[in-house]
């Protein structure tokens, strides 16, 4: 069952991005591109030879590492009841593979002499300084209530309580931010800094990076969907339910994204800080037993 994830994780996300563009277009009262447009874009990019602005090995290697870590993240999640890569404490490994993804992006961006790339790298790291702790606090609440740090084990043993509901909402927020939807796509801002870390990439390397970003987005929202559905379902039914919850959450996020403008870095940080305070309060509530 979980091997279905090996097909879903790499090949579904660009299709979802196409759906997102269609939804955004419909909200903005235009036709928009076809659902497969993102796939067409990625395939075109993958077939083109890149132009390298620097001979640095880090620049060339970064998209491959980013793709590998995004796939690893996706493979650590459950499809149905089990996941492909599964071990105790893999929620921490999930966070750190995410860190590897950011690190690869940042190392690649810093290897080229372009102020926009550097600005994008800076923003990527600054955002992670606030939102990784928020993610950790959310995980801390789940770990306190379920006594485990394994994704599948937490997903199967969540029982509803006040702090868990709060933790779900926080997880939804963190998934939204880390997926890089519009109020928070500060690092890869298209219009402000020419796509930030991606600006000097072209051709095949750009295609790989875009694909990796889509897979990362998928992984974060699938994590949320797993935590919501797996306590109440098993096997194939769980997978179908996960897919439905995921699509619902994705569509809601895309709709919210279409109605918003991008935050400045300090505004996003303030939101993150407020989230951390709420998370700390929720942790205390969880420790008190509710």
């Amino acid at each position: 069952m979980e091997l279905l994830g090996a097909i879903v994780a790499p090949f579904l996300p660009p299709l979802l991005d196409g759906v997102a563009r269609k939804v955004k277009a419909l909200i903005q009262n235009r036709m928009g591109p076809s659902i497969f447009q993102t796939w067409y874009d990625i395939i075109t990019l993958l077939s083109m030879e890149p132009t390298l602005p620097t001979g640095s090995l880090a620049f060339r290697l970064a998209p491959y590492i980013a793709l590998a870590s995004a796939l690893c993240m996706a493979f650590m999640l459950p499809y149905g009841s089990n996941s492909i890569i599964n071990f105790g404490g893999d929620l921490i490994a999930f966070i750190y593979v995410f860190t590897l993804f950011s690190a690869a992006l940042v190392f690649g961006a810093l290897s080229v002499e372009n102020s926009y790339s550097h600005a994008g790298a800076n923003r990527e790291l600054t955002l992670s300084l606030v939102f990784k702790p928020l993610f950790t606090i959310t995980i801390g609440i789940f770990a306190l209530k379920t006594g485990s740090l394994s994704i599948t084990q937490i997903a199967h043993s969540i029982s509803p309580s006040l702090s868990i509901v709060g933790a779900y909402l926080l997880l939804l927020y963190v998934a939204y931010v880390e997926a890089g939807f519009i109020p928070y796509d500060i690092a890869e801002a298209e219009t402000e800094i020419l796509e930030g870390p991606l600006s000097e990439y072209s051709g095949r390397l750009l295609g790989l990076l875009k694909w990796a970003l889509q897979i990362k987005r998928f992984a974060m929202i699938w994590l949320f969907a797993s935590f919501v559905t797996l306590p109440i379902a098993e096997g194939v039914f769980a997978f179908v339910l996960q897919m439905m919850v995921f699509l619902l959450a994705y569509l809601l996020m895309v709709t919210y994204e279409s109605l918003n403008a991008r935050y400045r870095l300090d505004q996003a940080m303030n939101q993150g800080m407020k989230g951390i305070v709420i998370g700390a309060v929720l942790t205390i509530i969880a420790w008190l037993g509710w």
Partner: protein
Amino acid sequence: MLFALLFIIASIIGLIKREQVKIVGLLSALASLALVVEALSGIDATYSILGLEFAFMTDTISRYFCILVGISGLAVSLYTAEYMEPRHLNLAAYSVFILSMALIVLSRDFLEFIIFWELMTIASYVLIVTYYDNTETKKASIIYLVAMHAFNTAPLLLAIGAIYSQFGTLDYSTLQGVYVPTWVIWAFLLGFISKAGIFPVHFWLPEAHPVAPSNVSALLSGTMLKMAIYGMIRVVELFPGSEAIARTMVVLAILTIAIGAIMALVQKDIKRLMAYSSVDNMGYLFLALGAYIMLDRVLKKIAFLALLLHAFNHLVFKNLLFMLSGNVLHATGRKDLELRGLGKKMPFTAVMSVVGILSVSAVPPLNGFISKWLIYQATFLSKDPLLVGGGVISLFASALTLAAYIKIYRIFTGEPNVEAHEAAPLMLAGEAILAFLCVVAGIFPGIIARIINVDVGNPWLISIGGATFNALLFAGTLCSFIIAAAIALPTKKNLDAPWTTGEPVDEFEQKPEHMFTPIAKFGKKLSFIGERIEERFSSFERWYSSKDLGYLDEIMFMPVIKLIEGTSYVIKELSKNLNALLAVTFLVLFTIVLTMAVLAGVI
């Protein structure tokens, strides 16, 4: 104890022939290798010197720390052979430094412990003042010496003295499990946290480590700080009743983690940044130790493994990073973050820096991840809110560490703005050993765990407490994805200049002090508070010395001196008249005899 002999020979050579850096370095490397080999097979020796019995024996923990000292000694000595500039006694002090650290962990009673501890402090002081003509070094070395003796040696001596006066012996095996007064454990805690650089007493670390030559900084930051952890583990293992200090230790450790990581972010000097990062990592070690004391059963084992693995990992990557900063300093003469473009002329340094940076940020599949993963397991699953808070702060600090070290990566990219050259082969060899260990310990962490006899199931993975992390499989999966993608979608080298929309890059270049501004503001506030506290202290000192109190002893002894002065004046006057002098002398003698008779109880 062949290694001790080799170290002593090396230090004698260093003493007699002050310029033979290569010989001393290579001999020290050989001696460290001998230390590792002997420690693996166990050491059990007793010597009688000047009537004192010195016994050296390895048990599980001391064997592990011996191997740690040996590994770092080997790598840094190879580096030293090409790097260190011999000045005054520092060549002799170098071998003595490593030898004293090895003997600290091998000693079997507190007497040897404190003797070699003090020897280590003195040797490290000599090494720190290598560049004694630099004003910065003078200030830093005084802070180091005073802080070490006031906060480290003094409490340790008090504690050891109390143990001796209560039990009459200082031997570990006799003292195993005896109950000591709680204040003794507090004194030990104070002594060891000041050596390790934990929050209230961490101020000496960012001053002392940057001014020392880079190989010495590597040993100070990587290995000497572990001696404090070793001492604390010893005390916790010997004496029951350490629950009293556990909570305080965890609170201080959490503060240290936060402060060290934030302060590392705002530094402009490479070595100071790394020194603050060491402070941060020592916080992790004490957090793990506190968790070890506070938890029980499975989580206790996890915390213990986390503690020892992180000691190894930090030793390896911090030594590596400091030696790489030495490469940069040696090649360019600068250690600030304004350097650019060193990657072109120093490719090996750049690659090993990436390995070091990824290790310190705990990115899988390198070694830093394993120990951090274990720390998170121990803290998050503990159901204790203090420890869970510690886990959250750890992750925050982990992200801050990545951000801080990215600034160091930046010096290797871009167009060069200084002349540079790659480091000498021996220097690179020392660093390559540690870089290799970083990767190996990340993929096969079970090997390290085997040395401490912690049961982790299969030696190729870490399986503890129901959680199995197969690092090899994980690294293999990542690598296979990368290789598959690289084979399916390769890139040809098709070079061109960067397109920056036509704007000149240097005008809009992002300076390191402007990176991470929202968080860096906190760091600036923290350093501002630190400066205010220092200002208060120094203003008190200025007030005190401005008073015409002069010396303290003058106040105490002045009246007596004035009395003697007055008496001698009177006698001088009297001597001008002989009769009067004889009369006074007779009177004085009579008074003395009378006083003594009264005192003896005769009258």
